[in-house]
């Protein structure tokens, strides 16, 4: 029993000795400085260097580069906006349809389609565009051989189509998350009262998706603006600003003008960012902590025309993507140029004799980025969103900048910034790792922010109440609570690191060669067979690693179970 007298004279105190207090405070400040300073040093500073460069010319400080852009590149500017607008609208519609399609699947169907979505996200650059041409080009398997059409995809419509289908997965995943939060009992009551599916869609589902739809529109537009790969490969004569920038860097060696062009991309993206932030807050505040079935109880096949339309489009999209990826895998083992399928392992052999080390290196760097990057994102969003440090929104904005500019710009910024003392890290593994980490920060921090809002303030307060210092709160409450977010960040970081090309193009040195660079090289030199092998390898490896990580964490979660009920893990 409790000794009352002893209780009243309790002299236990939370350790108040000066040293541990100072350590806690210093540690807390150090962490803040690390993440906030890191963002400033490795995002703002390189971009600032590019900004400065845009005023540079052989004669010194000048606005002439900007003048040049306006006079020479206005068409490209207009085209970027055109493509961006169309893509964002089409893609959002398609994403909504597809996410509705997936959410209403059950069981093995759901697993297959979700798996497809994940595979699509693991898309090594360039190769998808090439597969697209192989399937839908003038002599494409589908367009020419199957449908006997003679279409020309090398124009703005080709770009729009290609961008639309490749941006769907990431949008659909986000929308899926929203759909999972819709209160099932609301739908059930509506159905109970006689509402048809199209009414439920109109009255319950779409309103719930509204903030997500707006976010999709904005994000897709920004992504499209910054995408240089697609227009470069299939745009043909149609140049967007992003592909022009790419050309200026890669070909004309015109850094100054390219720097100015990048600034033109940045401005609209910044504006959209602020609008996006507003809506993102709305999305996250509607979090329901009630666990419910991830399946959306809307039977599409009983829902009339709309239902069939959704199912049809969903299936069609899946078919298109399956074809695309099969095409990549087939090209790895089919002799290029032959009219009928002729199996060959020559490309696989070539890759393994010359390129095995690059693959290992890619894996290693991807792992490092994934682990450190996820931690970084968690701690960063903790300080910005939860602790609400001063100028938090400024830091958040800086953290999102890499998303709004083409990767090549970010890479050039790194060279400009870190090629001389005091911080000379060009040519090293470090610069690649840091570059990839910060390039992916915009997405990882957003993933964390959403998850962070699920951790009730009361938990943090209780911990502090019971004596936990700042660092202990992070260790005991924040990090464990963010495990699902860290997993998602890990997967995203790993995938991106294995497939990102733009930023690192200028940063690789012979001894830090990465698989994706080899891929770019092979595509560049026309070796589609080799390119397909590398791409296939990247895809398979990424999927394997993701699968392993996922299984591992699920196993660890289940292992901690005790008591009577099993712990249900919510997907996405």
């Amino acid at each position, binding site marked *: 029993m409790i000794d009352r007298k002893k209780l009243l004279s309790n002299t236990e105190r939370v350790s108040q000795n000066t040293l541990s207090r100072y350590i806690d405070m210093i540690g807390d400040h150090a962490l803040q400085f690390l993440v906030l300073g890191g963002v400033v040093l490795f995002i703002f500073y390189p971009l600032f260097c590019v900004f400065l460069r845009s005023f540079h010319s052989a004669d010194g400080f000048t606005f002439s580069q900007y003048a040049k852009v306006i006079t020479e590149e206005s068409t490209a500017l207009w085209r970027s906006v055109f493509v961006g607008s169309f893509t964002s609208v089409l893609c959002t519609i398609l994403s909504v349809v597809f996410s509705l399609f997936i959410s209403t699947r059950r069981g093995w169907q759901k697993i297959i389609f979700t798996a497809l979505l994940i595979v699509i996200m693991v898309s090594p650059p360039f190769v998808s565009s090439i597969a697209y041409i192989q399937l839908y080009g003038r002599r494409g398997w589908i367009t020419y051989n199957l449908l006997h059409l003679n279409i020309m995809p090398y124009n703005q419509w080709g770009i729009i189509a290609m961008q639309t289908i490749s941006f769907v997965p990431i949008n659909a995943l986000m929308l899926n998350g929203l759909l999972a939060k819709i209160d099932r009992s609301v739908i059930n009551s509506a159905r109970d009262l006689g509402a048809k599916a199209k009414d439920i869609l109109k009255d319950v589902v779409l309103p719930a998706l509204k903030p997500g739809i707006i976010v999709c529109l904005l994000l897709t537009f920004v992504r499209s603006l910054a995408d240089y790969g697609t227009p470069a490969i299939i745009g043909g004569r149609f140049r967007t600003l992003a592909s022009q920038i790419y*050309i200026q860097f890669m070909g004309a060696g015109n850094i100054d003008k390219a720097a100015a062009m990048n600034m033109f991309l940045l401005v609209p993206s910044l504006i959209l960012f602020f609008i996006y932030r507003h809506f993102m807050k709305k999305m996250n505040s509607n979090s329901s902590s009630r666990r419910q079935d991830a399946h959306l109880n809307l039977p599409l096949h009983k829902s009339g025309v709309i239902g069939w339309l959704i199912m049809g489009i969903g299936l069609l999209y899946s078919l298109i993507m399956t074809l695309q990826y099969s095409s990549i895998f087939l090209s790895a083992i089919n002799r290029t140029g032959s009219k009928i399928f002729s199996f060959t392992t020559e490309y696989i052999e070539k890759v393994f004799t010359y390129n095995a080390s690059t693959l290992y290196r890619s894996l290693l760097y991807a792992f490092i980025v994934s682990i450190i990057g996820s931690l970084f994102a968690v701690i960063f969003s903790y300080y910005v969103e939860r602790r609400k440090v001063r100028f938090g929104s400024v830091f958040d904005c800086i953290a999102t900048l890499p998303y709004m500019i083409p990767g090549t710009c970010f890479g050039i910024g790194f060279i400009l910034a870190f090629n001389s003392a005091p911080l000379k890290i060009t040519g090293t593994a470090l610069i690649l790792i840091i570059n990839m980490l910060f390039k992916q920060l915009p997405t990882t921090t957003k993933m964390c922010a959403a998850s962070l809002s699920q951790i009730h303030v009361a938990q943090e307060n209780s911990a502090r109440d019971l004596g936990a210092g700042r660092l202990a709160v992070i260790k005991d409450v924040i990090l464990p609570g963010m495990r699902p977010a860290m997993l998602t960040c890990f997967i995203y970081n790993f995938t991106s690191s294995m497939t990102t090309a733009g930023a690192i193009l200028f940063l690789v040195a012979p001894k830090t060669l990465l698989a994706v660079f080899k891929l770019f090289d092979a595509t560049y030199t026309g070796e589609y067979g080799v390119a397909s092998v590398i791409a296939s390898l990247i895809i398979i490896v990424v999927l394997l690693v993701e699968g392993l990580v996922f299984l591992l964490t699920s196993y660890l979660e289940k292992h901690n179970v005790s008591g009577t009920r099993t712990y249900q893990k919510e997907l996405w």
Partner: protein
Amino acid sequence: MRKNKILLTVLSVIMIISMLATAVGCSKKPKTDGPLQIIATNETYKELFDKFTADTGIKYEMLSMSSGAVLSKLQAEGANPTFDVWFGGGINDFINAKDLGYLQKVDFKAIKDLNPLFVDKDHQYFSKGMTIVGFAVNNDIIKEKGLKSPATWDDIIDPKFNDEIVFSDPSVSGTCYAVLYALMQKKGEDYVKKFADNILFLGSRGKDPIEKTVAGECAVGITYIDGTLDGIIGDANVSIVYPTDGIPWTPEGVAAIKNSPNAKAGAYFVEWLYTDDANLQLLAKIDKKGAVKAIKPGLKDVELDYDADFLYDLDLTEYASKATEYKNFFAGLFK
């Protein structure tokens, strides 16, 4: 309490700054001589570089990149380039790089054996061969469309070839700049306008035209010509045509970079390349063309695959100086 907080913040900031400073101080250590860093246009040159290591004991590491990208990299890296040797690529990029002061002067005895046309008068860039350009023609499509296989440059501006030509952006591809330069000089602006009209697809890589032609996306691809094309064509029904009214060409550059990490070794590589005939013979074997013979006329066991008189005179200075003007003109045709 408040005062303490300020003190602590200052203390922690000082601590972190000093930690960073030490870390940074470490990176100030000068780089020791490591393997030779080479950027080449193609991985197949590995064989040549392996011979370099075998002959000299100097190890290397290589990367392949287009010459335009290399120029951008040099500009971005400024005073601290990260690579030593630049091997291959359109000469105009090398001339640009020289004007910007990025190349090293390399003097060696064997220079006197080289054709002065292909050596920079200040010995800052050299040449490893020439790229010549002609047509790749997809005979199936020609037949399908009822066209006549083109034999000259004048043939392909015929409106019948509308949307049947694939060409690469001269801003990016050294090969295609050579074409643009030749066409502007020999055929004039009007011709180039009509030429641009017939272009279906403006690629960004030198290999785009031949690939697209082989893939059946177009009837004619404006492509470089050498022995490696056979591998790309495979068993597709594509022929190579040397236009009879003129063959655009450009020398391909070789240079050692100034202030690079292993500058001395870089210069030595250039010297090594031209001093022993065996190296150039190997080069010819790799490139599957005898163009290097024009560089070093005294080279044994290598012959040019075509009549060198076929090639018109090329004033390198003008070739480089007209680049901006011609490229802008061409770009303007695609608005």
